[in-house]
């Protein structure tokens, strides 16, 4: 992760200073898949998510002369994407109110190495189901922390929440998983 961050810093520098398109291409490789997945959580459409992620990436290129002023480009890109998604949704839907709680999100535990200790496929399915029954905001937070490796602070910034909320929501998710285990093994 640290090495990746240094790489990103170097790439950003050469985009900002030299208008270097190959470096931009590498940044695209690093961020685009995550942004697309994130956008998909909001938009529920592969095409729309791709467009939203694409339009967010280009903002980075458009503002390349000021990139060095951005504190955390990863978070910044997520925020740009979030805003874009919310905009799209606002235009798309007559429904005026839009909260995180209406977004359907899927979480999967791919689980390719279950022999370390026995998490059986059946067990995994149960836990997946449990997590997927959580409120949507909780799921999105779980996803961002687990799958994108973002910190509490970063997630809080992206979703416009307090760090405390992120902490609490993650605890909710873990508690749910714990309860599933408890039921299954009747411990």
């Amino acid at each position: 992760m640290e090495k990746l961050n240094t790489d990103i810093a170097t790439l950003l520098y050469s985009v900002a200073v030299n208008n270097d398109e190959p470096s931009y291409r590498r940044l695209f490789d690093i961020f685009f898949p995550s942004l697309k997945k994130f956008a998909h959580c909001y938009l529920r459409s592969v095409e729309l998510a791709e467009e939203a992620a694409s339009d967010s990436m280009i903002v980075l290129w458009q503002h390349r002369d000021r990139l060095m002023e951005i504190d955390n480009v990863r978070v910044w890109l997520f925020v740009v994407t979030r805003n874009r998604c919310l905009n799209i949704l606002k235009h798309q839907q007559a429904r005026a109110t839009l909260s995180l709680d209406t977004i359907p999100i899927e979480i999967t535990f791919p689980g390719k190495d279950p022999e370390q200790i026995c998490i059986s496929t059946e067990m995994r399915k149960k836990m997946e189901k449990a997590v997927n029954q959580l409120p949507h905001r909780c799921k999105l937070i779980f996803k961002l922390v687990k799958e994108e490796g973002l910190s509490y602070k970063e997630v809080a910034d992206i979703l416009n929440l307090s760090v405390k909320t992120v902490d609490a929501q993650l605890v909710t998710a873990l508690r749910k998983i714990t309860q599933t285990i408890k039921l299954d093994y009747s411990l």
Partner: protein
Amino acid sequence: MDPRIIQLMARKLSGEATPEELEELNELLTRHPEALYYAELITQLWDEEKMREITDTDISYLRHLARHRPEFSVPDADPSSLQPSGPHRRRIRPLTWTLILLALFAGGWYIFSRLRTAPPAPNSTDTNTELFAGLGSRRSLLLPDGTRVWLNAGSRIQYDSDMLHKNTRALSLSGEAFFDVAKDKDRPFIIHTDKIAIKVLGTAFNVKAYPRDKITETVLMRGSIELTVNNKPYQKIILKPREKFALIDEPHDVPVAGSSPVKIPRPAQQEKLVVQDVVPVQLEDKEYVKEVSWVDDEFVFQNETLEELAPKLERWFNVQIRIRIDDPQVRDYHYTGIFHKETIDQALTALRLIRPFTFKITDSHVFIH
């Protein structure tokens, strides 16, 4: 369970815990040993997603360029774009130019990358030797350069018996084989399959490329290999020991959105590239790497349903298997185990002990119900 433990676990997993909190968690866990099990399970669930998915961004990036082309074009070269945007005529020209430039760029890039990385065209006359392992049999052989090859059931290799006098040691494979490649720095060893090509200097690894399988797979045991997918020769994937590469064909189900100015055709099939760590299977205190155990005449399977096992059993025992099971309890049960010298009869009898089903074997046909 102590809610504080869950809170501290959450912070630990997300990397948010302070040293004091970590210490507190350890202390709590020693005082509540029953919580240790949960902690272990949750940690595992959290960490297990180590699959490094190589998302193919090439097409995405081309679409991105197409969508935002004006941002990248070199406006200085086109004086018309310097003037304040005028009537329609002015507007059309830069766009046309952009399209032509893009087409040239894409075409040039394609040709260039083909020229640069395309392996020396495998002349068909070069592969004058062909070896075959029939269904239900496995064999090992030594190539002229000292490389040892194990061929799994239903596999075929073709190579040039005169390879020592060529610049490269080229070989084509259909099916599954394990290679222990003899070191020769001056003559890279190149394996061509239907979907991928692998370049090595000296190492041991397994390649599984049965034409009918959806998945083409490579597992590296030692050394390092460089792998390219045939239809994207410019993207190279370097594999490290104990890593597994898989190329998975997925039928494409999403129609193209027509909003971008330039339409870039999507491939009819989407391919997913995945690199992940190889995790050995523990069976009776021994470790097996299921991807390569066949070399030792051991058929290892793990967490697979009868349906998933069937094609592998077919190849291993040279039989045709038909399954008709309605009970979901039996159908969805996942088996883990190992076969060594068993016959198909013994193998199925063993599986039946776990979850009851009946089977009938006539000649090379097996019915399971």
